[in-house]
């Protein structure tokens, strides 16, 4: 175990995997000199050379497609998107090519491709650099979707992704990069996909959250505990595949569900979870499942307005109290 930042955990995992397997390589905007602007690729070019860790032009459609081609021909590329918002530039590559190539060619090609990068609020990056876009990639079949909320989870899920023969998108969070936690040094440390993590056990209300909102939900759970409400905080870890069982079993126990994410509330992935729970645990519900998400507005540049648009800890507390009728 070493205490390190989320960003360092990502960087060290990439480095370890590149050392282990020379088919693994990294490309993206600004990965060389400054180690991407958040330090997730620091010194990788120094260690592995420009053959295996190199800058791309500012052309997401081009280098995502290049990653797909490399994966098809036997490499195990890690493609970094500087902001996950930029995935939109490469949407045809991601949704029509990466997600479907294996399927349309009858399974002849393996696609061991990792697309990763950061997203979200916290730096006042405004409307086109602060979004949470994971829901879109959950909607179209063919991509695995991972959302690590801690450095430990980032390391474990990234290693599993790199060793997966199918395309995986990893959504990291810019506001979580400086957070520190214990990360296993074990070069084989992996976290399974489709296994949710109960970040805090509880009995009165189930809170399902990802990324930054796991942290905020845990803070809310502290507040709720002072009021005598015991909240169970579940991080799905991967949205595809989704660990339905852990969530449904938790709601069967608590009878109440709040889903909270930074993705827009309208048709956000929380709606999928709420609906799934209603279908599978209807008789156990003591209140309608509640969804919290970013309001239906572009994210503002101004930090105060950004806060107003996104769920705060107090909103989570209030939602949990509401479903508990307290």
């Amino acid at each position, binding site marked *: 175990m070493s205490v390190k930042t989320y960003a360092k955990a990502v960087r060290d995992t990439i480095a370890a995997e590149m050392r282990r397997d020379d088919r693994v390589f990294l490309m993206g905007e600004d990965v060389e000199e400054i180690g991407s602007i958040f330090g997730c690729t620091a010194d990788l070019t120094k260690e592995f050379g420009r053959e295996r860790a190199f800058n791309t032009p500012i052309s997401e459609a081009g280098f995502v497609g290049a990653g797909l081609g490399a994966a098809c021909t036997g490499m195990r590329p890690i493609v970094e998107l500087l902001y996950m918002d930029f995935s939109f530039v490469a949407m045809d590559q991601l949704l029509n090519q990466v997600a479907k190539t294996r399927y349309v060619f009858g399974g002849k090609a393996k696609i061991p491709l990792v697309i990763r990068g950061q997203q979200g609020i916290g730096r006042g990056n405004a409307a086109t650099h602060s979004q949470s876009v994971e829901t879109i990639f959950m909607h179209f079949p063919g991509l695995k979707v991972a959302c690590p909320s801690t450095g430990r989870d980032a390391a474990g899920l990234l290693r599993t992704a790199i060793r997966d023969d199918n395309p995986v998108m990893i959504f990291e969070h810019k506001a979580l990069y400086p957070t520190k936690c214990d990360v296993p040094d074990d070069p084989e440390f992996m976290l399974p996909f489709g296994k949710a993590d109960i970040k805090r056990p509880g009995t009165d209300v189930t809170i399902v959250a990802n990324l930054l909102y796991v942290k905020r939900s845990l803070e809310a759970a502290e507040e709720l505990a002072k009021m005598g409400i015991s909240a169970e905080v579940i991080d799905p870890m991967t949205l595809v595949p989704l660990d339905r069982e852990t969530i449904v079993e938790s709601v069967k126990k608590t009878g109440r569900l709040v889903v909270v994410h930074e993705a827009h509330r309208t048709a956000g992935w929380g709606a999928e979870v709420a609906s799934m729970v209603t279908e599978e645990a209807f008789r156990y519900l003591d209140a309608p499942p509640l969804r919290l998400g970013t309001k239906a507005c572009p994210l503002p540049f101004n930090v105060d307005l950004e806060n107003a648009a996104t769920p705060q800890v107090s909103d989570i507390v209030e939602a949990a109290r509401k479903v508990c*009728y307290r």
Partner: protein
Amino acid sequence: MATTIIMPKQGLQMTEGLILRWLAKEGDTIREGQPLFEMETDKLTITIDANVTGTLLKILRGEGELVPITEVIAIAGEPGEDISGLLPSGSAAASEQPESAPAPQPEPEGNPAKPVSGERVFATPRARMHAQERQVDLRTVAGSGPDGLIIDRDIQEKANIRATPLARKEAEKAGVALDGIAGTGSHGKIVLADVLEKEERRPDAAARDAEISEEADETAIPLTGMRRIIARRMKESLTEMAQANHRMEADMTEAVRLRDQLKAQGIKVSYNDIVLYCTARALTEYPRMNSVMTDNAIIEKRRVHLGMAVATEDGLLVPVIRDADRMKLQELGGRARELGRLAREGGLRPDDMTGGTFTVTNLGMFGVDTFTPIINAPEAGILGVGQIRKKAVVLDDDSIAVRSMMWLSLTYDHRVIDGAPAAQFLRRVKQLIEQPALLL
């Protein structure tokens, strides 16, 4: 608004019930909690109380009909109300009459826990699930959620009120809310007496009490709760049945010896256990004695569920030993002691007191030689047992010997069984008691 009355499910295994007797006829006023009809399942005979208050508009399934559970058997409502929409499909009226929109219901005043019957109860799915599991009637729960929505917590609080099953049943019958009662039982458990006391404090009970005049040299005991029930049942039994009585004196000398031998082995058996055991055995041989009478049939029961009268501080209770004829002597004795204890502690479940097919009552411990017991309706007979006394008896060989003697007194319903077969039954009980070797 008219409501339907259905064949209720009484116990997990029940799929259909036989209607034995309607206790109200069409046009009669019925009250929630008051007996409405008697029915029989494969397990027991039971009186079902009305779950609505109103006028019995239509009886759809008559006496002697076997009806699947949840099927509509009657309709209650206001006199003159149009009930064509509630009649089972297939009847001409139902197919012609389009379902009319229900008239808006006035808000029930006062107690929100008791909505007008037929009014929709709003509860969360979880509350409904737990209400079903814990047998809480949603109509008796006050919802604490938004707009009176019943939420899970309301069910938990309701179900967590610690009360004996008897107290619960009485409270339900009388419409008394358990949450306002301080329990006087062990660990604050609400017992029957607490409910009865609460019942007496209700305004209508007060009105009833007001009419009781008490002179200076008198004590008036208000006729409430259990006393009222006992009074009604005893009177009904004597007015409805043709009760006749036979007596025989049994020689208990051998039974005394058997008991002493068992006692020496450390096996605890009472004389009453021996009487229960012999009675159960004799009932299997005389099924007519083990029967129930309906208006047009005598139903002989194939299973023997033996009631045993127990005197408690609250009054007489008759717990039932199920399948008494299939038990060994010690097993029967153990069960009798357990039920006796539960009766005295107020721990009997409603199930423990229903479905009896014959009753034994013993006043020997009070020094009674012989007495005339009253039948526990709707059974056909009851055996009264007196004390054992040593007497000088002339034996068959004209010698005089000291023997332990005990009177048996059988009251039987002459409508069901004639004097001669009743005498044969009693003689068989006596024979078994006198020769315990026959038990082996």
